[in-house]
């Protein structure tokens, strides 16, 4: 039998002469405007594989969250033998180590933390690894801390590390940064042999160039990338697949994409290891195979289901401290779905909306939440646009109501900046696939900065001096809006400098000691970099300033002269009520902070960007922050992301959404996260009405400029019951700031915080 050409039947284009997956997709995808009636139930084989997986997941939960750790091997692309869940029944293969859910050790980020984690989990780390990673290999963590300890700027006047003051936290200085999306589709479309040859040609070009620092950097990186691609091929070969050649059908396309992703999660354990945008790409192969009769719809769904099962069991070894920040063991295998084609503009950027990009495979991926039940991963993200087909708006709303596992993001907004082939890293970070990446920078605690100002530069909890030479406020009895806000913005500048410098240190070292070889190999040779900063507690600072402006705020000082409480006389408009008296303050905070950050140059000329996103760290931030002038008591959690403070949004759900929709995306290019929870009975009387109402709500929110929304349709009572009887709710999934978690995997503290949030609720 003659061998079928992998690109048979595809429309020709630029993609054949250069690496251009976008061109391939746009030339070949079939948009689908119909409803979900074509979808198929899981096959018997999938049911078996998922059944076994569920048993493993159950054992993992019962063992306290970690099924096993391979402490002997430093995990690399080729370090482990093949592993399977159910070899005879799984149609998509590959796991991170040689057994599913057994976690690999990736000491390149930091050996000490990895060892500590092993010990806390009751495993003995291998002394050989310790030797290697302390004597012969410098880890990312060690190299950053070497700089920290010899850098005066990074010490407080009291001699402590600035990072331990809780003002900038969660930085990837002792774990891997993540938030890089490889263009995993390239492996399927071109095969590794072609990609290796292309990168070798890139390397050769650089070899001919003048050897300055920039070109040397590139050479080193290209060389490492080529090795990673070769390793990837070897790893796939161990599973019996030759990914040197392009994928020949839909099953191979999915498998090739998965191998490329698997290489990334074998090599790296970055906070967020996202999948990118694969729906229309896979669909092209599915359509071809369905047309030729090679596979049936049922089989295509089986490949998608089996692929998703694999994405659900991606695991990394995490220190308990890390867990407290990013609860529930998230991996952020974020997959975007839908969106619109961009017409005009460079790469579609700034262009108009063209034909929609919803395909049957977007439905198939959403349908896994029905076939396999709800789950937090992959982090399915619907790219919403005004002109998406009604049927898809309805179906995705329906799935959100049923599963509370989806997030929605504004495609009309992001397409302007990133064209029509972007994905989301983590929760809300948009980047054009293969062309853009980011240096992840967690977030700073803005309320704590405000308290530093009020307390003359001292940490409100420890009393230690953090900022030198900060004059006390003129009016210490009543906080005056004008004085406090003006001086606060100046102090923001001080923070911005420290923040950018620290990020420069971290990412310089990360590139050197813990570079993402395989993921960067799946990028263009020239890339655009973002440096992603973040701020937590925006609504607290906005409300605090509003309280000073519209009511009277009197600090209560302790013996040390530190404000430990605030007495508020009179009412003030709070963020979340669509009231411009305070919403304008929130807008100004975003603008001023981004402007301050942009004053300080970044490593590799990265573009500054800012997010309003907390993950679940809003609980930890609250725990380590004293009382704030908005009336929040000491140690109380912050609101997540850009959300209004709990229960201060009193004018109903839409007023709350409108306030958040006003926040300027142009100044918050790394995303504005909003977590929205509503009781099902409040969303509508019947399930059909709930679906329609949610779709209309999303239309309105995005039309008004909203960027992102997590949708939870749940009862407080259900969550309370799940706290008491976790065994009854193994798959109960809820959206927290920017990702979804298994509710039962949260700590009690976090569960309580989720329950105490504003649940939009109303009865009749």
């Amino acid at each position, binding site marked *: 039998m003659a061998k079928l050409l992998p690109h048979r039947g595809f429309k020709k284009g630029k993609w054949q002469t250069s690496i251009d997956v976008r061109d391939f997709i746009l030339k070949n995808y079939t948009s689908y405007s119909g409803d979900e009636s074509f979808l198929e139930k899981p096959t018997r084989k999938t049911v078996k594989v998922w059944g076994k997986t569920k048993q493993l997941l159950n054992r993992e939960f019962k063992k306290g969250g970690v099924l096993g750790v391979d402490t002997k091997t430093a995990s690399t692309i080729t370090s482990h033998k093949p592993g399977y869940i159910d070899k005879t029944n799984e149609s998509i293969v590959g796991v991170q180590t040689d057994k599913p859910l057994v976690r690999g050790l990736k000491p390149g980020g930091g050996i000490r933390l990895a060892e500590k984690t092993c010990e806390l989990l009751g495993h003995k780390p291998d002394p050989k690894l310790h030797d290697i990673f302390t004597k012969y290999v410098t880890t990312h963590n060690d190299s950053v801390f070497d700089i920290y300890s010899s850098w005066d700027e990074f010490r407080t006047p009291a001699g402590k590390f600035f990072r331990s003051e809780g003002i900038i936290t969660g930085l990837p200085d002792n774990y891997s940064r993540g938030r890089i999306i490889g263009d995993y589709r390239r492996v399927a479309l071109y095969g590794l042999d072609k990609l290796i040859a292309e990168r070798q040609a890139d390397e050769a070009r650089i070899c001919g160039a003048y050897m300055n620092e920039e070109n040397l950097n590139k050479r080193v990186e290209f060389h490492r990338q080529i090795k990673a691609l070769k390793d990837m091929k070897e790893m796939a070969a161990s599973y019996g697949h030759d990914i040197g050649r392009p994928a020949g059908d839909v099953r191979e396309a999915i498998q090739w994409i998965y191998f490329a992703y698997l290489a990334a999660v074998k090599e790296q354990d970055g906070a967020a290891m996202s999948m990118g945008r694969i729906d229309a790409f896979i669909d092209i192969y599915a359509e071809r195979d369905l047309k030729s009769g090679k596979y049936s719809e049922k089989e295509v769904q089986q490949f998608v289901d089996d692929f998703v099962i694999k994405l659900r069991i991606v695991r990394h070894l995490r220190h308990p401290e890390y867990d407290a920040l990013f609860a529930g063991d998230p991996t952020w295998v974020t997959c975007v779905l839908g969106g619109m084609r961009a017409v005009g503009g460079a790469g579609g950027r700034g262009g108009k909306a063209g034909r929609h990009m919803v395909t049957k495979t977007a439905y198939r991926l959403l349908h896994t939440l029905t076939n396999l039940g709800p789950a937090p991963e992959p982090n399915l993200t619907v790219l919403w646009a005004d002109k998406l087909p009604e049927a898809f708006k309805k179906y995705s709303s329906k799935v959100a109501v049923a599963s509370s596992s989806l997030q929605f993001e504004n495609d009309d907004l992001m397409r302007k900046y990133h064209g029509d082939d972007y994905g989301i890293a983590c929760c809300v970070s948009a980047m054009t696939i293969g062309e853009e990446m980011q240096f992840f920078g967690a977030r700073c605690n803005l309320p704590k900065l405000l308290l530093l100002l009020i307390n003359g530069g001292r940490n409100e909890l420890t009393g230690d001096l953090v900022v030198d030479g900060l004059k006390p406020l003129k009016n210490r009895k009543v906080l005056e809006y004008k004085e406090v806000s003006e001086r606060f913005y100046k102090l923001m500048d001080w923070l911005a400098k420290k923040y950018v410098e620290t990020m420069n240190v971290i990412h310089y070292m990360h590139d050197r000691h813990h570079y993402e070889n395989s993921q960067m190999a799946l990028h263009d040779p020239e890339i655009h970099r973002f440096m992603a900063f973040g701020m937590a507690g925006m609504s607290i600072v906005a409300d605090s300033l509003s309280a000073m402006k519209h009511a009277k705020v009197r600090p209560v000082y302790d013996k040390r002269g530190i404000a430990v409480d605030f007495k508020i006389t009179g009412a003030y408009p709070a963020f979340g009520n*669509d009231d411009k008296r305070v919403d304008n303050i929130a807008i100004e905070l975003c603008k001023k902070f981004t402007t301050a950050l942009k004053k300080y140059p970044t490593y590799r000329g990265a573009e500054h960007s800012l997010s309003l996103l907390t993950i679940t760290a809003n609980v930890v931030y609250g725990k380590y922050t004293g009382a704030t002038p908005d009336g929040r008591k000491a140690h109380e959690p912050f609101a997540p992301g850009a959300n209004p403070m709990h229960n201060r949004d009193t*004018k*109903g*759900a*839409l*007023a*709350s959404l*409108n306030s958040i929709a006003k926040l300027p995306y142009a100044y918050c290019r790394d995303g504005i996260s909003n977590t929205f929870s509503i009781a099902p*009975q*409040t*969303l*509508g*009387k*019947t*399930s059909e*009405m*709930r679906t*329609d*109402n949610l*779709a*209309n*709500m999303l*239309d*309105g*929110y995005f*039309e*008004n400029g909203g960027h992102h929304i997590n949708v939870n349709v749940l009862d407080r009572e259900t969550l309370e019951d799940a706290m008491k009887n976790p065994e009854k709710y193994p798959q109960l999934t809820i959206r927290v700031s920017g990702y979804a978690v298994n509710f039962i995997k949260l700590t009690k503290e976090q569960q309580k915080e989720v329950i105490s949030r504003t649940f*939009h609720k*109303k*009865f*009749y």
Partner: protein
Amino acid sequence: MAQCKNLTKTDKAKVRPINRATGMIHSFETFGALDGPGVRFVVFFEGCPLRCAYCHNRDMLDMKNYLKMSPKALIEEVHKYKAYFGKSGGVTVSGGDPVFQPKFLVEFLKLCKKEGIHVALDTSLFTSEKVIESVLPYTDLFMISLKHFDSDTHKCMTGVPNERILSNVRFLSRALSASDASNKKVAQQKRGAKSRTKIRFRYVVMPGVTDTKENLHALVEFLHEVKFELIELLPYHTYGVYKWKKLGLKYRLKDMKPPTPKSIQKIKKMLEKEGFKVLLTE
């Protein structure tokens, strides 16, 4: 009925409406998904001619807590939420009872109509035919709360007898049929004549009071008399009782329990058998 003895002044109805051009607005619910079709901005008018024993918005009746708003100021508030209405949603005017402020109501409704915003009126229809005629051209949906078919019980439960309400419903139904007939003519000449105004009934199911055999029988008879889109069954609940306590008022029905889901389903099936469309929370 035992609940009707020893009524205090606050339990008695306040019948005379307020006729001012400026509105007295109690509050808004920006995301109303339960008061009419689609996503709705619900505006709660202060004041009501009735004093229902089971009122769940008791805090809106005493003309004490309200914002003064001009029709223009109110429509500007609505503008903020227009993007969410889609094809199905709009504004629901509720309260209290909007017909208690007829002059302001009409002016506000005119503004909504001018902008093509779908308006639902949530009312007991305890008002005059004149008021009904004045709001009719600007209202897309009447959501009429039918309380009870025995006039004495009605008076006991709401402070007013039911004759006027029932005759108003009949009046409205006739008026709509007449305008439908004339619309049909227009529609034949010109395609796309405006969609007709509809009636929905809302019926609170209270065990032992509104779910009795006699009362349900009277309900069915009445429903056969008039033209309407659907009837919504609202199981009696106690979520509004705290408002009475907060105001220092005695809640007369403190022993009443919400109906069982089973009994509600029974009523739903019975009404459906009669050929009516029934809406009930799933």
